[in-house]
């Protein structure tokens, strides 16, 4: 089996993480910000799996399992918050959501 070098996975993961960061900073739609956060979490997962395969250790994959569980919980809570906010403000534009401001 011809192995792909680890750096390729790391660079790919860095690119995807940066795309996710750009998405979080530039987009104003709360749901798309969520999806960008998922992108960032997944790029970190890719790094974990890459190192786990490289070092021959299962701990990285176990950690990815936990990250996925927490990401699922975060998505459920976050979308519930979005629904609750939409019910109050009729928008998901994060610029117009300022009810925490005093």
């Amino acid at each position, binding site marked *: 089996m011809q192995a792909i070098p680890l750096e390729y996975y790391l660079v790919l993961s860095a690119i995807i993480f940066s795309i996710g960061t750009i998405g979080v900073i530039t987009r104003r739609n709360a749901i*798309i910000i969520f999806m960008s956060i998922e992108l960032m979490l997944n790029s970190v997962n*890719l790094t974990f*799996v890459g190192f786990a395969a490289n070092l021959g250790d299962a701990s990285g994959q176990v950690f990815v399992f936990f990250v996925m569980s927490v990401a*699922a919980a975060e998505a459920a809570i976050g*979308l*519930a918050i979005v629904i609750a906010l939409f019910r109050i403000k009729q928008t998901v534009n994060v610029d117009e959501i300022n009810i925490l401001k005093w």
Partner: protein
Amino acid sequence: MVLGTLAIGSAIITIASRHPVRSAMALVLHFFMLSGLYLTLNAQFLAAIQILVYAGAIMVLVVFVIMLLNLSNEEKLKLKVSSRYVLGWVFGSALAFLLMTLYITHSSLSQFNAETAVAIGTVNNLGNELFTNYIVPIELIGVLLTGTIVGAIVLAKKKLEN
């Protein structure tokens, strides 16, 4: 290579398209590509979980919320080329540059020992690890998920008249 290119492409579509549904579909494609990448890294269990949890559960939730809220196109995305837009691109590019130089300069760690790597990603091995060495974290994850269910229901339900 193909998987990586498609993953980057669909990630860009995810943050660049104006319509949330199109964005979500691109993200599903991205998750499938990542799953393929996990397979190339001998992580079979995680590849299956990636499709089940992300492309299945989370994206169904996202698409459901998008349809529930009946969002239209984001109006005039391009009109708001503001300082935040520039700032976002500068930060993102700087981060990408930083991470990549970091990885490339430390390029002495690519000894891929395939014979040990084949066995670690199987359900058998991961299950053993999870329920012996990582038993406390997995119990905590159970508690967290239970709390999440309750919290999501409380947050999303309508206010009761009292």
